[in-house]
């Protein structure tokens, strides 16, 4: 395999409100490529909540192979402009999908960013024809207006 490059997908600030079972970010590798997920950062806050001292928890699932719903396009950028453009597709705020395999469940606290840097042997592999979904699994019941920032770093390899 040949590495094409390393890319980041950065979610626009606060414009998305995915709810239970929706995806914050979705990556779909092109045919004949694989993606290696190396880092995920998620931060969120409650819009209109004047008391931002309150901390709540969000649980997310890292899912492979889910069939996605509808979402908005996102353009990953190479960390080095010398890399070719990412050949797959990406979306954010994707409505509830179906199926897929949960690779990992991670918790994120509000009012700050929580980082998951994956050790080389624990990085998630997403083959061409599959998908990677950063999925909202559980939100506190009273939370109805959540805003996110999130970013994902990944490598693209030609198979």
């Amino acid at each position, binding site marked *: 395999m040949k590495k094409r490059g390393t890319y980041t997908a*950065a979610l626009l600030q606060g414009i998305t409100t995915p709810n239970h079972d929706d995806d914050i970010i979705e990556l779909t590798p092109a045919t004949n490529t694989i993606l290696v997920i190396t880092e995920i950062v998620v*931060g969120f*806050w409650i819009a209109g909540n*004047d008391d*931002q001292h309150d901390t709540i928890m969000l649980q997310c699932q890292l899912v492979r192979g889910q069939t996605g719903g509808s979402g908005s396009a996102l353009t990953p950028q190479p960390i080095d402009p010398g890399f070719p453009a990412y050949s797959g597709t990406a979306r954010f705020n994707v409505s509830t999908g179906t199926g897929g395999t949960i690779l990992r469940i991670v918790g994120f606290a509000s009012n700050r960013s929580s980082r998951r840097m994956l050790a080389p042997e624990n990085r998630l592999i997403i083959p061409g024809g599959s998908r990677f979904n950063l999925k909202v699994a559980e939100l506190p019941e009273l939370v109805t207006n959540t805003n996110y*920032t999130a*970013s994902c770093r990944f490598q693209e390899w030609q198979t």
Partner: protein
Amino acid sequence: MGRLYSASFDDVTFNQSLEVFSIAPATNVPVAIHGFCFSTILATSVTLYTCRLSRPTGSAGSGGATATSIPLDPGYPSADAVITTNNTTPHTGPEWVWREMWFGPAPFELKYAPEDRFIVPGAGLFVISASAIGSAIVSTTISGSLYFEELG
């Protein structure tokens, strides 16, 4: 390995939004971003921010100050890149490559593994900015440091 430099600023007024660092490499001297850190003197007041990284397609911001880049090895020549700190007027044509939240009363620091470093081509531009979220904005001051490598 290229030549490593740091650039710092200290105790600058910070209200709503600043371009904390603006990195403008010289022609033919690309720069690798090794990491950066900044912090405020916020005490009990909690203000949330986003930290955003951009590789602009437009023009640079303005209103800031030029920082002195310090070679980590005194034997290095002066840096070719121009590092501007705390622009109050943002750049145009942002191309966001990273966004995350920053909890104001805590320091914010990112360091990159060698394979994860953002590369800024010669004559390019890279911007690290911070912006307050929501209505609970508190005036404070900010200090920070940038670590970068010149590859040319």
